[in-house]
């Protein structure tokens, strides 16, 4: 599959996961991502994998946990309320040091909210959600092609670091049609069963045990310190950002995913008006590309963080810049997506005409 | 080798074996093991019928049973 094919986002991302070696998928229906499990239910049997429709997201993530303990490439996907139900499992998986990939097609909240595109699960994805001190790598693709490519990295990094990797998109990316190319195909027969996997001893001289339980405080602290060391390594090496039209920029919009896509149009319009606006687009929202953003201190007159949420991404921008660049913010909630002109208007309101 | 061997360090002195032994040869001893339990003890190996009941009910796998056979 080296040629471009026209595919719907939610299906292309599913195929991307399969090309990345995913052979097991467990999930429960929820809009706006139903095409992903539906596609998996058709495709996985064709490649020798298994699709299971679970009785709930609670069950899905715990089935993922079981399969992850067997050392296979496994994923689930859902949308905001379903991801909330998965937080327990994500915490256990993180606490047990096993790898998996979770995709969230974020929708409007809180509660049942609606099915329109949103980015209001940012804190849940990058700061916590479940109990305990754990982190996930969180990829935030802004196009279908990028999502497909990132799925390969998602599974590779999940295995490398033995941790949960999340891919956060929204219904817009899931529902749009775009030509995509599947550049990398992982041959699953080359993937070795890790030595820690609980696959039966089969002659191994010891039993493997996977647990997130350590009863004594000193022991659990040691375990936490190991996790922290791993997360520090990930922070050091895995953060990614796209810097778009930043060479001569006086101002930058900071946005990710769908919002960044729209912001690129804002930048075109702004530049036509003589405003030197660029885009800093985190590709990983954890680890947050703070170092990359900090290189603009002293070069930029201001940044405008734009998100489909209320000051969630903005908090990380604040932490990264500590007031060293004037910080503007604009966001809409509940599934309302601002257009490029609306963003430009917000920019001009906060930074004047950009001189 | 004894017919009834009770691993005193495993025994938690629950008394279940004593309650079901049909020939009443098991008692609680007056020693303490390292965990502070008084282990069960067999008072008369020769009377053991090798019925297996004590080993079956012991929750701590403290009891092993053997029997001499002529070869």
């Amino acid at each position: 599959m080296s040629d471009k094919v026209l595919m719907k986002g939610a299906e292309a991302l599913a195929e991307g996961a399969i090309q990345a070696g995913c052979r097991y998928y467990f999930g429960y229906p929820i809009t706006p991502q139903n095409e992903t499990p539906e596609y998996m239910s058709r495709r996985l049997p064709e490649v020798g994998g298994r699709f299971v429709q679970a009785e709930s997201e609670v069950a899905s993530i715990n089935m993922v946990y079981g399969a992850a303990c067997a050392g296979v490439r496994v994923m689930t996907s859902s949308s905001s309320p379903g991801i909330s139900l998965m937080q327990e499992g994500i915490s256990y998986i993180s606490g047990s040091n096993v790898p998996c990939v979770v995709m969230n097609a974020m929708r409007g909240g809180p509660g049942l909210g609606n099915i329109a595109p949103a980015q209001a699960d940012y804190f849940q994805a990058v700061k916590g959600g479940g109990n305990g001190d754990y982190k996930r790598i969180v990829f935030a693709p802004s196009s279908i092609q990028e999502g497909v490519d990132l799925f390969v990295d998602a599974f590779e990094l999940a295995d490398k670091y033995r941790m949960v990797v999340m891919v956060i998109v929204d219904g817009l990316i899931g529902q749009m049609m775009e030509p995509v190319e599947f550049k990398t195909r992982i041959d699953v027969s080359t993937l070795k069963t890790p030595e820690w996997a609980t696959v039966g001893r089969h002659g191994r001289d010891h039993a493997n045990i996977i647990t997130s339980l350590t009863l004594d405080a000193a022991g659990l602290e040691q375990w936490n310190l190991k996790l922290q060391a791993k997360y520090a390594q990930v922070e050091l090496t895995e953060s990614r950002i796209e810097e778009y039209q930043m060479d001569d920029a006086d101002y930058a919009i900071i946005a990710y995913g769908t919002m960044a896509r729209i912001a690129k149009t804002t930048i075109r319009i702004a530049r036509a008006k003589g405003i030197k606006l660029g885009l800093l687009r985190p590709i990983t929202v954890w680890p947050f590309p703070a170092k990359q953003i900090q290189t603009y201190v002293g070069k930029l007159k201001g940044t405008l963080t734009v998100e489909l949420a209320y000051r969630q991404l903005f908090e990380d921008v604040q932490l990264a810049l500590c007031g060293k660049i004037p910080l503007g913010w604009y966001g809409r909630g509940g599934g309302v997506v601002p257009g490029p002109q609306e963003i430009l208007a917000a920019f001009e309101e906060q930074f004047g005409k950009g001189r | 080798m004894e017919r009834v061997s009770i691993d005193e360090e495993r025994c938690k002195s629950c008394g279940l074996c004593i309650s079901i032994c049909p020939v009443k040869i098991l008692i609680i001893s007056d020693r303490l093991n390292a965990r502070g339990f008084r282990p069960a003890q067999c008072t008369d190996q020769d009377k053991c019928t090798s019925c297996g009941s004590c080993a079956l009910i012991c929750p701590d796998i403290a009891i092993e049973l053997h029997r001499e056979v002529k070869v």
Partner: protein
Amino acid sequence: MAEQMKVIYERPRSWANKVTHYCPGCTHGVAHRLVAELVDEMGLVDKTIGVWPVGCAVLGYDYFNFDSVEAAHGRAPAMATGIKVTNPDNFVFTYQGDGDLASIGMAEIVHAAARGWPITVIFINNGNYGMTGGQMAPTTLLGQKTTTSPLGRTPQANGFPIRVAEMLAQLDGPAYIARVSLDSPVNIRKAKSAMRKAFNAQVRGIGFSLVECLSTCPTNWKLTPVESMERVRKEVMPYFPLGEFKVVEGVL
């Protein structure tokens, strides 16, 4: 003629030779031992994965020489499903208490049973939440006092106990469902043969199997181990009758 010592009973080889953390006389230990004996006798140690619950058996994985995982509270059947699907030739069992299985994990157990995929469940019915200090469980009997039903369970305040074995036997998925008791040598023998059938239902690829074990919790029942066994016979068995509730063809 020489004399030799013949083995009547020896510790199972798949038993990791540790002293458990269970209270004296607690029948968790008996259920554990039967699992270890069957794993030995059926030659399963190399292909077994145990899925342990949140409850007193949370550390169960420490006591066996086979691979194990520790599930979240009530989620063992889902985790076992994920494990079994990836390696269908392995032997996968869950070990769950009544709070774990019949309260927080009711959805997971019902759907695992309904799917009918060959996993085996050892279900410990001790009528309370042992680990957290003796609160009311879905299996607590009417009138039974627990720390959260201090005057005794009433239908008005607490609803009725759940008979898990009978309930799951209504589903088409399961291959084998039985209720046994760990109160006496004769019943423990019967329990083992029921568990053997349950293990076989999986090994022979027939389907889902569950053995509910009437168990004791001397500590929270505030009875001696011997009195606890009597209580099982006098009070628990009349409400939770022993027997096989589902045996599909081929299970032996």
